[in-house]
């Protein structure tokens, strides 16, 4: 029986000829990741282990990004804990404020994630690197600790859902609309314990940034990982970024899938997830039909949509215009490199002149940490990934998940809108 792309990568990492869905395997890890929230718990755990340091100081990435620059004293203590651990263990890939970015935008940019890798990260959006043809998945802090100590992790080999993409995205529609559409279709547990393998002729039309956004939100459908084939666009990205040699894997032609879902990209519409679950999706037509939704805040950024393409899309819509009166708009380039590119391309000027604030890279508002916490009854259109109760602040605030294009258009109108409404 053939193997899926994910199964082939896992077989390689387990040193086995083949694996099948349901097998429990021990796999060698190519990268172990943690941030300022999850790493301190992992560091406490690794200190309880009878191990001498970490398995490989070059294969660990520590990225303080959630509550940095330190939002309060407790966060500062957490960051200090991570910083000192990194120093003590001579961790090569520790990224201090000034060189850090939001982890899932930063690591591919730094070339630390490549095709064929097996990557675990103590952050649920670690599944992002599947865009590059890697197996990568989120775990908790204890798994991170064990990974740092032993260079291995146990996995139950997942079965898969195949998403066969055809056509190409219409104007103003992006990877975010596609992944929200998929989550709306299969639900927040529609891919529970499974791989989401994106394939078909439509993949070629998706930019790398679109693919990062799509793989990033596999977890929002319950998926273990999301993964894309390695094609010319991937190779072009890797030629610019990769720091290591890599092996590209392909699914076998006779691989078995639990389900095959065909999606024609050309038919997609701007899609928004309403409170309080990502599966609660509405197309822009439905929103227009059902009446205006007034908003208080817009956030454009995060590991889902803080890359340069996202910034360009938002700036293109905001250019020469001003955001609606009474609206706050927070723009957060995901890494220092994206920030610099925004500066060089004149995007920062566009954002500031249109009335937005621009922040240093941080996960802050996405999880209600800081830098844009919502008050009771406030509504936010956000390019982030979760709209759970209380996620961005007060339990009676509301989050509408959308693409950068919808977020920027909504900022100008003061209601949920798309560029065609302007």
């Amino acid at each position, binding site marked *: 029986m053939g193997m899926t792309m994910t199964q082939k990568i896992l077989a390689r990492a387990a040193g086995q000829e083949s694996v099948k869905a349901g097998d429990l395997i021990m796999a060698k890890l190519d990268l172990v990741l943690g941030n300022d929230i999850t790493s301190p*718990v992992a560091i406490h755990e690794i200190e309880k282990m009878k191990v001498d340091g970490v398995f490989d100081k070059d294969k660990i990435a520590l990225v303080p990004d959630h509550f940095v620059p330190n939002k309060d004293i407790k966060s500062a203590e957490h960051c200090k804990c991570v910083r000192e651990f990194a120093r003590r263990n001579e961790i090569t890939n520790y990224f201090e404020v000034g060189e850090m970015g939001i982890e899932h935008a930063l690591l591919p940019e730094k070339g630390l994630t490549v095709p064929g890798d097996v990557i675990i990260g103590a952050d649920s959006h670690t599944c992002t690197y599947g865009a590059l043809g890697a197996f990568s998945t989120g*775990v*908790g802090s204890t798994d991170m600790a064990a990974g740092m100590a032993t260079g291995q992790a146990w996995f139950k080999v997942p079965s898969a859902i195949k998403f066969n993409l055809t056509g190409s995205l219409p104007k103003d529609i992006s990877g975010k609309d596609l992944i929200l559409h998929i989550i709306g279709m299969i639900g927040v547990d529609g891919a529970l314990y499974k791989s989401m393998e994106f394939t078909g002729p439509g993949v070629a039309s998706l930019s790398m940034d679109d693919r990062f956004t799509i793989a990033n939100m596999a977890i929002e459908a319950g998926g273990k990982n999301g993964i894309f084939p390695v094609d010319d666009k991937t190779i072009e990205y890797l030629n610019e970024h990769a720091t290591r040699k890599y092996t590209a894997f392909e699914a076998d032609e006779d691989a078995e899938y639990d389900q095959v879902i065909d999606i024609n990209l050309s038919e997609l519409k701007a899609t928004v997830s309403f409170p309080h679950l990502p599966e609660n999706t509405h197309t822009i037509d439905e929103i227009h039909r059902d009446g205006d939704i007034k908003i208080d805040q817009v956030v454009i950024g995060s590991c889902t949509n803080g890359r340069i393409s996202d910034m360009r899309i938002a700036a293109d819509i905001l250019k020469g215009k001003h955001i609606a009166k009474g609206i706050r708009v927070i723009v957060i380039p995901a890494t220092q490199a994206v920030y610099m590119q925004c500066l060089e391309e004149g995007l920062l000027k566009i954002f500031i002149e249109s009335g937005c604030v621009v922040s240093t890279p941080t996960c802050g508002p996405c999880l209600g940490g800081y830098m844009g916490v919502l008050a009771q009854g406030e509504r936010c259109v956000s390019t982030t990934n979760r709209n759970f109760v*209380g996620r961005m602040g007060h339990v009676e605030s509301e989050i509408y998940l959308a693409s950068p294009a919808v977020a920027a258009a909504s900022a100008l109108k003061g209601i949920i809108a798309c560029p065609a409404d302007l």
Partner: protein
Amino acid sequence: MDNAKGRVFKYGDNVDTDVIIPARYLNSSDPAELATHCMEDIDKDFTKKVAKGDIIVAAKNFGCGSSREHAPISIKASGVSCVIAETFARIFYRNAINIGLPIIECPEASKNIDAGDEVEIDFNTGIITDITKGTSYQGQAFPEFMQKLIAAGGLVNFINEGK
């Protein structure tokens, strides 16, 4: 493993880790402090009412969302002896096993057990007994590999024993 026994707190589908332990408290990693905010955004009375041994019963996809291990840690530190659900989100499932919080999948128990019922779980057999109603259910037993992990008291001890 000893049996779990206690009163039931009942929740629905998709209880996410943001409501189990909101991110505004993630500037701490102290289990006792996290426990004081456990379930705060879905059930503000939980921390006042929960007693050692109590049991959480939920429906589909319990623990979805963020990978924060603080979620099972806060539940365990609240004194909860077991979480029963129709299904668990995969990261929460791993985390619970890794930190030694007993969890068990059982759609029938999840459907039929009510809030306030007195429930007992035998982890050796996977049998869940609703003492209040006089009914019992067969929960999903763990694969042998995970039983070893749980028997060792979590992943850290498991690795230490292997050294």
